[in-house]
């Protein structure tokens, strides 16, 4: 690269003179509008259209040249009168180094879709893990947040490409595979690189099909030691609360339902009007304190940090605490020809989870039940059916029933007594050795050890008593004396149980690779070859449970029991570890930074596929090409265009986190259909049967191609990337339900389909200054995703999913639809009368007030054949908006995130039974026999899955709104900043439930996309301060 020549002369005179000159970029292109200002004086000028300037100065003046997108330069005026000034591109743009796995590449040389997020953007959005902080900042990466304390967001890169296999991206921190992103303190992160496309991700071979996320942690920088402190405090509340019916409305509604089925009615005006969400929810709190010291001398770079993050959730007692300690040192030896790099990260967590089921219990439980009765017992939905009063008390001859099975959410939270502690030790030693100026050898050894202890205490006695306010301690105690004399006391009558589960796991990796780089003439070559070995997923657990321990927290001891009535439980086992042996090679070439070619190949062998001899090893190739048009001579005159690079890539990726087939042989003692009776004494003979076929399955192979271009124009004020991707999982593994007339009984896995994801990604940034005090930037990203199951093997589709746990399913896998698309009846108003039901296609159970379903095939019956596919919970597009403004010492940033084209299922409303509470919206405008109504069903409705409960999941949310103020430098404190952050202050959605952003575990076969017991989105108010010494 070229650079500015600086001329420094001793100051000899102060006379004023006029200097002239031109300002150009490194390719001799004149830069119009560059500002030249004399430091500490008021005179300045700007260059004209041809980059020329003239300025009155004195010899010895310092002149600062600023131009957007280029590094600011300062030079001193000498006796010369003309100057040719060459500005360098801003390092953050094109010279920025991007981590690409087993090496780095300059941003300007990248020929694929890689998005980098730097530390500033991560820490601006406080969260316990960095991935949550980048939601909405990376096109094509759909991050589904979960606001529960200690939760991990679900990350989908370029769509969901698998139905049953692993769905998570592959995380690598400083070259070392990472098990849990939560173990990394966001403040320790220098940058995160998202390798979206196959041509880059494929360097991680068999584990790269869901994308690769590379995390680089901070290192010390040359200079005096820097001490950094950051603290923030915040309060969290629920963002969107659904208004539930109050006591009077509930009674009206319930009585309508009961009237239609001819059952007892409730009295109006009852004692209690409990708002369960008021009782259940509290304001959560977040506290975060970080400290770090870093610096570097000639021989050592050092970085040491400590962080403590604490969060109290919105349920009482729900807590997550995490501490991390990180130490990154680099030793530079032998004139920096050898570098020893040592990283150590210690993370420990302490968590007391509370059941999320409490959220849907609060939804279903009725306002007439108190949180606690006068006798101190938790309220239960008992109703005296004779008097119609919701109470467990009854005079002789009156009968008492249970109104619903929603339970008491406060009770559930109160009795959940679980403590989870984890410790993760992660360390790495790496050595880089410059064998020659062009050839470097890198070797690394990394290891991770994790410990987890889960202690759970179950107060059986209190919970038994609280399950029914009429139960007595006397009865409980009597049961413990074995009244029926059979020598067995049921564990139902243990005072308590206490269980401890300890898990240990480990992983290690060793790798070595040679990197050769050479520039000659205009040829730039870089080649890497290497190998790696990894062992992971190994570990062991021990589990022990005892009954009747001492209840006090500090006296709980498995060996110290108050009775010996019950059998203890002990268990333990080891986990199978996986060995992975890999070879990789990469070749990069460019001619004059104009034409780029890049090829990568990875060969992976895994012990998980040990049995199928031939498929132990897989080869994953990739190629990509690029062309930087703006570096061509013929583009020299296109002034408005600063950078334009076309790129295209193709590659194969593997997903080995797929389920395995085990030859199931069903056999066992007792009465079961593999056994039979033979002989004169009719002896029971144990037999066997094959449960499922063991189809030979391999890892999934995803093939992807992408094309796109990077651009920068208008003096780099506008820049971005636009690309198209198309990826195909060529052998998607499905959970196949055997066809009814086939020989097998149990479900099995087989390579049975292809899953395709395709879409466009747009990433555009605009940045500009208005005067020297005001600068701003706007970032927009938008990406689309079309997800489709293709080429399903005959009779293999039809796998069902999305069970609501009441026998109703909501999803099905079908060729031509997204993975596990919604599958249900389409609603068409409300049945108005029995007459109407009798004369139209209807369910056998239909009654007036029920939803009416469309007879799609016009066969006069409503059955499964009338269920149709209704889209997916997977968004077809998502987008993010980032706005940053700096004015003098103030900075303001706003981040927004949105998705669209998806549908979510309101499971809370769907799994209703008479006796459950309802939201106010289901009460208003409902069907009644008197007033009719054709949109919302009546109080007596059925449980079928239908489009009535399927709602548009589009939303746009302001993720983050931060206002900061940077204090003037005072004495030793430099760079002190105070800030206020609002997280999720607003969400725009039509969805009627708590949140359309439904994380669950991302399993498409499960309840992902269904709001049943999801943790609601929260809003936080955070104040923080950071300063450096």
């Amino acid at each position, binding site marked *: 690269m070229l650079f500015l020549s600086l001329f420094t002369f001793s100051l000899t005179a102060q006379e004023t003179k006029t200097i002239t000159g031109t300002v150009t970029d490194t390719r001799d292109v004149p830069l119009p509008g560059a500002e030249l200002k004399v430091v500490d004086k008021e005179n300045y000028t700007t260059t004209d259209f041809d980059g020329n300037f003239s300025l009155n100065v004195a010899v010895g003046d310092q002149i600062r040249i600023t131009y957007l997108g280029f590094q600011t330069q300062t030079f001193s005026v000498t006796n010369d009168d003309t100057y040719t000034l060459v500005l360098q591109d801003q390092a953050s743009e094109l010279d920025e180094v991007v981590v690409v796995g087993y090496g780095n590449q300059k941003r300007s040389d990248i020929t694929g879709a890689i998005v980098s997020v730097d530390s500033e953007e991560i820490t601006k959005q406080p969260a316990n893990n960095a991935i949550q902080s980048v939601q909405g900042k990376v096109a094509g990466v759909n991050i589904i947040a979960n606001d529960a304390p200690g939760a991990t967001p679900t990350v989908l890169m370029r769509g969901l490409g698998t139905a049953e296999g692993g769905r998570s991206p592959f995380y690598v921190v400083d070259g070392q595979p990472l098990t849990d992103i939560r173990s990394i303190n966001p403040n320790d992160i220098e940058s995160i690189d998202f390798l979206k496309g196959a041509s880059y991700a494929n360097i991680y071979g068999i584990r790269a099909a869901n994308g690769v996320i590379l995390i680089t942690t901070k290192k010390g920088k040359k200079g005096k030691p820097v001490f950094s402190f950051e603290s923030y405090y915040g309060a969290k509340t629920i963002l969107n609360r659904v208004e539930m019916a109050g006591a009077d409305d509930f009674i009206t509604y319930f009585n309508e339902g009961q009237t239609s089925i001819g059952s007892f009615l409730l009295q109006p005006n009852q004692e209690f009007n409990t708002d369960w969400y008021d009782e259940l929810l509290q304001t959560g709190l977040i506290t975060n304190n970080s400290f770090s010291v870093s610096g570097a001398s000639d021989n050592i770079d050092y970085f040491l940090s400590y962080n403590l993050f604490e969060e109290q959730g919105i349920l009482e007692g729900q807590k997550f605490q995490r501490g991390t300690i990180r130490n990154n040192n680099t030793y530079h030896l032998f004139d920096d020809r050898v570098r020893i790099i040592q990283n150590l990260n210690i993370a420990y967590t302490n968590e007391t989870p509370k059941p999320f089921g409490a959220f849907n219990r609060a939804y279903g439980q009725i306002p007439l039940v108190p949180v606690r009765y006068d006798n101190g017992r938790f309220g239960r939905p008992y109703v005296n059916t004779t008097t119609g009063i919701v109470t467990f008390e009854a005079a002789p001859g009156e009968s008492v029933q249970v109104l619903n099975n929603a339970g008491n959410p406060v009770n559930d939270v109160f009795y959940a007594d679980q403590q989870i502690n984890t410790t993760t030790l992660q360390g790495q030693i790496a050595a880089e050795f410059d064998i020659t100026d062009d050839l470097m050898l890198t070797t690394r050894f990394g290891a991770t050890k994790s410990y987890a202890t889960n202690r759970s205490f179950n107060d059986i006695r209190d919970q038994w008593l609280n399950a029914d306010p009429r139960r007595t301690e006397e009865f409980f105690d009597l049961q413990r004396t074995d009244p029926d004399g059979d020598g067995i006391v049921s564990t139902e009558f243990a005072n308590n149980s206490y269980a401890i589960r300890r898990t240990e796991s480990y992983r290690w990796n060793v790798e*070595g690779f040679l990197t050769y780089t050479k520039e000659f003439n205009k040829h730039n070559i870089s080649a890497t070859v290497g190998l790696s070995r990894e062992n992971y997923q190994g570990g062991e657990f021990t589990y022990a449970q005892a009954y009747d321990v001492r209840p006090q927290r500090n006296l709980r001891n498995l060996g110290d029991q108050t009775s010996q009535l019950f059998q203890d439980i002990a268990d333990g086992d080891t986990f199978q570890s996986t*060995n992975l042996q890999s070879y990789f090679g990469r070749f990069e070439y460019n001619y004059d930074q104009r034409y780029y070619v890049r090829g990568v190949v990875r060969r992976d062998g895994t*012990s998980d596929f040990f049995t199928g001899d031939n498929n132990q090893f897989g080869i994953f190739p990739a190629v990509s090409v690029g062309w930087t048009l703006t570096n061509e001579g013929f583009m020299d005159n296109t002034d408005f265009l600063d950078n334009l690079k076309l790129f295209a890539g193709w590659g194969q990726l593997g997903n080995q986190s797929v389920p395995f087939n085990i030859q199931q042989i069903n056999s066992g003692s007792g009465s079961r259909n593999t056994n039979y*009776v033979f002989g004169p004494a009719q002896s029971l003979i144990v037999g066997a049967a*094959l449960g499922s076929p063991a189809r030979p399955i391999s890892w999934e192979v995803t093939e992807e191609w992408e094309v796109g271009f990077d651009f920068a124009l208008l003096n780099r004020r506008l820049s971005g990337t636009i690309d198209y991707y198309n990826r195909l999982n060529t052998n998607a593994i499905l959970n196949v339900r055997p066809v009814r*007339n086939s*020989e097998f009984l149990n479900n099995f896995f087989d390579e049975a389909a292809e899953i395709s994801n395709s879409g466009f990604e747009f990433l555009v940034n605009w940045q500009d200054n208005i005067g020297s005090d005001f600068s701003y930037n706007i970032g927009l990203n938008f990406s689309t995703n079309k997800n489709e199951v293709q080429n399903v093997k005959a009779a293999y589709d039809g796998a069902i999913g999305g069970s609501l746990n009441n026998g109703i399913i909501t999803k099905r896998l079908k060729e031509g639809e997204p993975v596990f698309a919604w599958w249900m009846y389409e609603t068409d108003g409300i049945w108005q009368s029995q007459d109407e039901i009798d004369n139209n296609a209807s369910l056998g159970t239909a009654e007036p007030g029920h939803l009416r379903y469309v007879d799609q095939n016009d066969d006069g019956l409503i059955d499964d054949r009338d269920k149709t596919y209704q889209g997916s919970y997977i968004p077809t597009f998502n987008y993010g908006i980032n706005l940053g403004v700096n004015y003098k010492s103030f900075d303001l940033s706003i981040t927004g995130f949105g998705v669209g084209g998806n549908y979510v299922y309101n499971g809370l409303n769907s799994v209703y039974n008479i006796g459950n509470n309802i939201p106010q919206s289901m009460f208003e405008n409902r069907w009644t026999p008197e007033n009719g109504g054709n949109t919302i069903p009546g109080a007596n409705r059925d449980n079928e899955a239908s489009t009535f409960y399927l709602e548009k999941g589009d939303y746009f949310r302001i993720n983050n709104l931060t206002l900061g103020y940077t204090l003037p430098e005072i004495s030793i404190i430099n760079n002190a900043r105070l800030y206020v952050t609002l997280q999720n202050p607003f969400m725009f959605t039509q969805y009627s439930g708590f949140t359309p952003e439904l994380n669950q575990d991302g399993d498409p076969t499960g309840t992902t996309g269904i709001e049943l017991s999801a943790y609601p989105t929260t809003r936080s108010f955070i104040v923080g301060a950071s300063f450096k010494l």
Partner: protein
Amino acid sequence: MNSKLKLGIFQAVLVCCLISCDDFVQDVEIVDEIAEDSEENFEPTDFVTGIYGMHTDFVYAFPYLGITDMISDNSDKGSSPGDTGADKNLLDGLTYTSTAPSIRDMWTQWYKTIGRASQAIEFTQLYEGQSSAPKERLIGEAKFLRALNYFWLVRAFGPVPIQSQDLVERAPVEEVYALIEQDLNDAIQALPIKSAYSSQDIGRATKGSAQGLLAKVYLYQEKWQEAADMANTVMTSGQYDLEPDYATVWRESTENGPESIFEIQARGDQPAHGVNQYSQVQGARGAEGWGWGFNTPSKNLEDAFNAEGDVIRRDATIIFAGETLWDGRQVNPAAANPRYNEKAYSSANAGQSDGDKNIRVLRFAEILLIRAEALNELGQSSAALTPLNRVRSRVNLPAVTTTDQGQLRRAIWKERRLELAMEHDRWFDLIRTGQAAEAMAADGKTFEERMTLFPIPNEQLLQTPEMTQNPGW
């Protein structure tokens, strides 16, 4: 520089270790939780036992009753009016559709049993270890059971896919029957006669079982000569005879007795294992009852016994509310239903989920009636009288004397109804003999032509939409 060299050597060594070979991936200590379940621990007889075991599932205690008895004129749904038994009200009322769970369950059960049989045959053929039972015999047993299940399928659904060929394409009835005959002929070759089995093998399919079933299969195909001959083979084998007392034919005392050709085995002692809940489902309902009260003999059936003056078989087939059973049990006069199925009654395990009731699938009396019917159809009416009257004489009914083919045909059909009442054959007899419309009308129900075959279950068609449905469904 020296230490730099050292470092270089160290790194080089490390890399060489890595290069060594691919063996690393095989170099894990396999934690194999399923080793004990691997095929090596099983032998052919285990898998054959697994086929027999399929006949002890709950589907034979409820759905099967729905599609064989309740649907016919012999019995009603029973239980309380509001208790539909999932779809038994629809079967009883002839308003069932392709979504009826009972039809689906039997379709599935029969195919899964066929699957187990095919797997057992394949496993046995490939098995190289020491088999504790002769492999030929085990294959013969598996083929008998496979034939039995295909027979049940084809008579219920008509053309059905042959599992080993295609799961979608429905094979013509003739092809299915050809497969059944092939399996049965193989079984006849492979299986020993009943008395040649050692005692611990009582309950296994015998040569006579295969021959008896083949006679019935011929009868369904109206291969009269073959049916008559095969029935005669069984009759002259010297292995079978009628029990002297009809009342004991379904009791524990006659299990695997002279009249037994094939029955599903059950034990009531712990660990009990029988057709799951068979006796309980059909036990008397209400106070002092011992069951759910389903599949109750109809008034129509009672009248048929009375019209014939057939007291012995009536009282052996029907439990009347208020009666005292042979073992002394008092049936509550106020039981929920007036009649219950006495053949399902287990004295020792009346209301238990696993009982001692062996279900008679094929017994000698039916062979005699097959012989009679086939001979009559062949025009040998007087010869047909002999086996027919042998059945009648046991229950003290006067001999039939007519040699008019039409009248005798009617007499034999009636005899089948009364002799085999509540033995899960009536509906298919009605269809086979073309009496269904008439009999259903007499029972106050409307038989539609499409009911000649059951509909292919909806859930099967959801999985394989290309499969054709039966006419009219």
